């Protein structure tokens, strides 16, 4: 049995997950998002990664970026390392890709401001 707290919304439901046959039986959730969250979290936990990257514009030396989808947790340290070492070429605008399809994960990094 595993216990976890749902982060889908501010209520923070305390979930219990038990193996039942080949799948997890989730209880404690007050909505379907809790069940989906628990299954994802137990099999392949993911988080949206946000960071700042250096730019080539001395007037705006850093730019805020994020992944366009939740990223597998194990990928995060390597991804951050790459982001901190890559210089973003300006001009860029909100939503532009800076890194596409990281390690064939189909997850990309986009900028979240205009420079």
């Amino acid at each position, binding site marked *: 049995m595993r216990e976890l*707290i*749902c*982060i*889908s*919304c*501010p*209520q*923070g439901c305390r979930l219990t997950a038990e193996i039942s046959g080949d799948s997890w039986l989730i209880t404690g959730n007050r909505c379907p998002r809790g069940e989906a969250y628990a299954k994802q979290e137990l099999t392949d936990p993911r*988080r*949206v*990664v*946000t*960071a*700042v990257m*250096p730019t080539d514009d001395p007037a705006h*030396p*850093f730019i*805020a970026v*994020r992944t366009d989808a939740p990223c597998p*947790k194990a990928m*995060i340290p390597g991804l*951050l390392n790459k982001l901190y070492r890559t210089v973003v070429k300006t001009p860029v605008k*909100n939503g532009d890709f800076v890194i596409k399809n990281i390690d064939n994960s189909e997850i990309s990094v986009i900028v*979240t*401001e*205009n420079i």
Partner: protein
Amino acid sequence: MVRLDYDVVIAGAGAAGLAAGTVCAQAGCSTLIVDREGRTGGILNQCIHNGFGLRYFKEELTGPEFAYRMSEKARHAGAEFALNSAITDIKQLEDGTFDIRVLSGKDGVTHLHARAVMLAMGCRERNRGAIATPGERPAGVFTAGTAQKLLNCEGKLPGKSAVIVGSGDIGLIMARRLRWSGIEVKAVIEIMPHSAGLTRNVVQCLHDFDIPLYLSTSVIRIDGKERVEKVVAAPLNSDRTPDTSRAFEIECDTVLFSVGLIPEMELARKLGVKENPATGGAEVNSAYSTSVPGVFSAGNVLHVHDLVDFVAEEAEYAGKCIVDYLVGAKTGKEFSSAAGKNLKYAIPNRFAAAKATRFLFRPTVVTDRAVLKAMVDGKSVWEKKLAFVRPAEMIIAEVAADTLHGDVTFELEEL
């Protein structure tokens, strides 16, 4: 600035100012939004993490993305902006309109004239001095928001190993940001028996990184000659004094304080608006008008919100009320509302009985079942059951028109 005479001047281009400005400009009111920063969006610009907008835009956004959308809406609506400009004084003239003194590097001192003023200045952080943390005065002590600005806007690391005092959301978010920036986070220390931040932030910012959260624990010293060397903390006794016999030391070179926000009320005080000691903001009626007619307030300068989505919703409503004021609409008979048992405050402080009112409350208790009651003359005249009550989460209750016929005190009863 093209013109100096406006229907509405808004102090602050953060989420509240932008939301109210959009509504005023859409209604055809000439609207100027003034901000001392060089870009619109306020504090959202340094909040580069995601989690914003789920309610207001039905989409998960980062702070800069939320700011960008709000700014574009205001621009498209026709609101004007005076950036890098600080309002240094506001006076109400004899005819009820306002004289506003603005200082900027570009234009020097300018005087603006407005028929209505919106206070949307947001908050300032409480710091080490505000909670009187004893010890030495070394470098390396920051508010969480200052460290956030250093890291996210200026790309500077505040230190190598940190202790975070207070478990407000900014502190929790910064714990993750520090870890993602290669900085060790030794502990988060919270004086209350529960986290001051949202549960999901405790999970994704502390549990994800195995950062210990010490509840009912107080920092009793910060030590260090030039730079912070250690923090001394002690669990609280049942009378909430620190138990120094159980004190423990944590070595670190950086201390971040995330111990609450204070509405930035200096401009409001120049206007003489009545203040609410429970929120630190102004007293308002259900039209978000302060005690000075023509002066409105919404967003974090009114009371500290959990989510920027609520700030935007509230300020949008306040914007509608400003438009009503400018066309001369009357609010009708008003009653007072007050916070009673288990509630820190109730907003608004006065309401028009003939209109539906959205009340906001900050609870002081943690409980999973409670009932919110509206008491008039000692009798409960309206009730709402609540399934989930936390001090970190605002209670929102819509009360229909013609329900409350008298001065009301709201109470929260645990079931």
